[in-house]
């Protein structure tokens, strides 16, 4: 369990919101044909903003 947690922290930097935001951004890139670039970049940027407001670790 601890090893899994360390792998998660290594990949995500300990962020809870980043993996979810990224998944939504990729889904938007595939499923919003007219707004693909805008939706993808917008959600990726919002994910970064949200992640920056998490508690520092």
């Amino acid at each position, binding site marked *: 369990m601890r090893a899994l947690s360390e792998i998660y922290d*290594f*990949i995500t930097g300990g962020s809870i919101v980043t993996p979810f935001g990224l998944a939504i951004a*990729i889904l938007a*890139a*595939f499923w919003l044909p007219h707004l693909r670039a805008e939706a993808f*970049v917008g959600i*990726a940027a919002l994910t*970064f903003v949200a992640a920056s407001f998490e508690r*520092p670790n």
Partner: protein
Amino acid sequence: MTPWVLAGTTFLASAVEFVEAATIVLAVSVTQGWRVAIGGTLAATAALFVLVGVGAPILTNALSLERLELIVGPFLILFGIAWLRKAVWRFAGRKAMHDEAAIYAREVEDLRKRERGHGFAVAFQGVFVEGLEVAVIVVTFAASTPALVAWSTGGALGALLIVTVAAIVLRAPFSRVPENVLKAIVGVMLLSLGTFWTGEGAHIVWWLGEETLFALIAGYVAIAALLVALQRRIYRARA
């Protein structure tokens, strides 16, 4: 994709990580001797070379470029956000600035209490853990842009060479290297390249073609700067 962007990013990312690894290796050498420190460092470096040497060809041969971009890009976004948000926290005063001299003093104090054989494990772990992220970045860059593999690996090897020579000559932690600024730059580059490649993997047609990368860099720099100003105000008011 401009080769200098790839080489510059791997150079900076590697330089920052190797500077951190050098602090640990120097602490081991001062407390437990050069042989132990060099032994641990060489073993970890060899393991990282194997990882890059095996990982990059496997990824390149197993998947098409578009699929690779869709796997590699998200990893770079995750790494980029992790690096850049830490930089935002530091410049906004929410997290202490990275201080190699303080880390060095702490490592030396800790190692003096330990048995002699412990130094090998500390040097190995320090170099391997700090180098692992570099290895992943180099493997992803090499896999996504196979034609520019010499540039992406060259950047990392150049940093390794410079930091190693500087560590041997100076024999002191690199407290004057502006690590906090370098980490912010690396965070922006990883996040921008990750966004660009993931988008390409998802068949997005970028507005400005390859030049979109520079627009992404400018955008993320602006957002990070705004976040620093905003968080400084919010968290100072709360303190």
